[in-house]
């Protein structure tokens, strides 16, 4: 068993005192960031990434930190959903539907503990899924040539545009803006400077960190101005802190089903925790049928979406590790973090950097155990953080974000560019343009252009190579399906609704 050997070696990496400590810190920070309304996993990872780099952490340690923050956020989001009725991050929206009514009935402790437990189960199942499927996918992806890679990236963009809901054109626009930003700077093939306006600061291209912090952190601060929340409605946890066996038995199968669905959805590029939790919530509601009291505090409505959003977060590591094509905004930021270390994620990662890959996978197992222990007994400590007033919290976020950008190059230019991108990001988000495709475009831009040029070099400019192999044909068909299917389904259901309506 090759995989088992690698996994044991991975635990060797993850269990070093340094990496254990980093995983624990990451899990704590992640839980807090996930819990705070407005800040989600992307913000957490974006703010910590430059710091990890500035602290000169070795790449596997940095990745373990970011991964712990990511899964920690998925745990944390549920706390404010349940106690405040304000989802801490997008993946926890469904959790509020039944979690908050439970808390109002005095079952807050039960809701918190069962959701921590189902988060744990979801994450664990998905991590086992990574162990089983990622090496296979990586082996298969080694056969990819530049043309297949180009098609794969187009497929990823099609997924993200098709699945991002109501405005696929805006998602596409965001991706193009991201790609365009990535072309700024020196073109390494020809030595031509592009879009630099003669400015020395831009000759190296726009720093990844500046883009991420600008469009996620700074724009988030401006958006937060509009959605003031207060911790006034915070429900105190009283009574039973832990779920009992009956409640566990009631939720068990739903948790398992939701974990598997969450994992599969997470592996698909573009479809993330939000879609996974919404899908499984309605799935469980349908399965429960008449005896369900969904929306009024049904415990199954808390367990299922939490299992799914954690499973999908872990699942999104699969495309990132095996193909080098991230499946979510958060993993896109991690790919950017790896490129800071001159590591290009992709199928070769499994053979060239086994310590990194398997150390990360092992740390997901460890991180989950840590998070389960952090989240059940210490939940009271976390709710204190929700009482920190915004007038301290927001300047703190801004200061830490700015430190992150400054730490990389120590120039005022980068800071100003961060502010500019922040305002642009705010205006775009205000207009309903999603930022995840933008960051995906920025991360993949160089890879995409290089693969296109390499493919066309093989045939001396003949475009036919892009649709030559069965793999690329399948990917193009998949991309077209992803773009055309959701609007078609929507049109169909509209028509059905129109047919049912009397007028």
């Amino acid at each position, binding site marked *: 068993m090759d995989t088992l050997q690698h996994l044991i070696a991975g635990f060797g990496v993850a269990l070093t005192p340094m990496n254990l400590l980093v995983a624990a810190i990451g899990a704590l920070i992640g839980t807090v960031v996930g819990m705070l309304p407005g800040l989600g996993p992307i913000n957490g990872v974006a703010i910590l990434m430059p*710091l990890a780099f*500035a*602290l000169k952490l070795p790449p596997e340690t940095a990745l373990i930190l970011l991964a712990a923050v990511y899964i920690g956020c998925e745990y944390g989001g549920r706390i404010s959903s349940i106690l405040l009725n304000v989802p801490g991050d997008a993946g926890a929206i469904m959790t509020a539907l039944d979690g908050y009514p439970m808390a109002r009935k005095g079952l807050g402790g039960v809701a918190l503990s069962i959701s921590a437990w189902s988060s744990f189960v979801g994450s664990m199942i998905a991590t086992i899924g990574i162990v089983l499927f990622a090496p296979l996918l990586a082996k298969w992806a080694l056969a990819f040539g530049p043309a297949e890679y180009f098609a794969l990236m187009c497929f990823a963009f099609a997924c993200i545009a098709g699945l991002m809901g*109501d*405005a696929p*054109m*805006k998602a*596409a*626009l965001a991706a*193009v803006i991201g*790609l*365009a930003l990535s*072309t700024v700077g020196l*073109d390494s*093939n*020809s*030595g*031509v400077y*592009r*879009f630099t306006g003669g400015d020395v600061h831009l000759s190296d291209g726009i720093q990844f960190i500046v883009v991420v912090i600008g469009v996620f952190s*700074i724009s988030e*601060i*401006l958006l*937060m*101005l509009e959605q*003031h929340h207060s911790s006034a409605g915070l429900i105190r946890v009283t009574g039973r802190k832990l779920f009992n066996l009956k409640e566990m038995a009631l939720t068990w199968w739903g948790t398992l089903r939701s974990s598997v669905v969450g994992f599969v959805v997470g592996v698909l590029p573009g479809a993330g925790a939000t879609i996974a939790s919404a899908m499984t919530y309605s799935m469980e509601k349908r399965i429960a049928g008449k005896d369900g009291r969904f929306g009024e505090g049904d415990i199954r409505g808390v367990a299922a979406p939490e299992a799914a959003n954690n499973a999908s977060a872990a699942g999104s590591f699969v495309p990132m590790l095996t193909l080098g094509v991230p499946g979510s905004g958060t993993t896109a930021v991690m790919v950017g973090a790896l490129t800071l270390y001159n590591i290009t994620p992709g199928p070769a990662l499994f053979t060239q950097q086994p310590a990194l890959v398997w150390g990360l996978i092992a740390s997901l197992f460890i991180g989950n155990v840590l998070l389960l222990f952090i989240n059940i007994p210490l939940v009271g400590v976390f709710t204190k953080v929700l009482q920190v*007033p*915004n*007038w*301290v*919290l*927001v*300047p*703190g976020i*801004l*200061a830490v974000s*700015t*430190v992150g950008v*400054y*730490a990389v190059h*120590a120039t*005022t230019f980068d*800071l*100003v560019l*961060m*502010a500019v991108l*922040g*305002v642009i990001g*705010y*205006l775009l988000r205000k*207009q*309903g*343009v999603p930022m995840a495709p933008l960051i995906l475009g920025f991360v993949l831009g160089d890879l995409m*252009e290089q693969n*296109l*040029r390499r493919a*066309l*070099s093989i045939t*001396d*400019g003949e475009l036919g190579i892009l649709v030559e192999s069965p793999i690329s044909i399948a990917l193009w068909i998949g991309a077209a399906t992803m773009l055309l299917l959701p609007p078609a389904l929507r049109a169909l259901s509209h028509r059905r609704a129109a047919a049912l309506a009397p007028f």
Partner: protein
Amino acid sequence: MSDRILGAVCVVASAGMAWAAQGYAAAISYEPVGPRAFPLLLAVLMAIAGAWLVLRPTQRGGAITLAHLKLIGGAALAVFVYALLFEWLGFTLATALMAVPVGMAFGGSWKQSLAGGAGLGVLLFVLFDKLLDVVLPTGLLHVVLGGR
């Protein structure tokens, strides 16, 4: 701002991109596709997306109140000023200063915000610069805080 404006801005930006990109050519070329093709492709895609938004907008401009605009504008301005003064004033002073308008925008009084900002400035400086070895500018306080 409505989708139409966003779309129009994109069309104009794509024209600018195309105009800038058409001059990009390698002195000596080893490959059939040079540095110009990809940016031009993106400009075309951006123009299509922009035109689509102009022709088929899905979101109209929401009503923005003046007070609201002031709030957002003020916060954005504070971020800019913070970025510009970060090195010169140093991290601690700049953070304390930034926290006043930003904290007040989030419901604090100016005293609370200033105190919070000063606390953050000192605390984060000690945490990052002294404990974690992430070098931060000391600026005007370099005599007190030592270092560069």
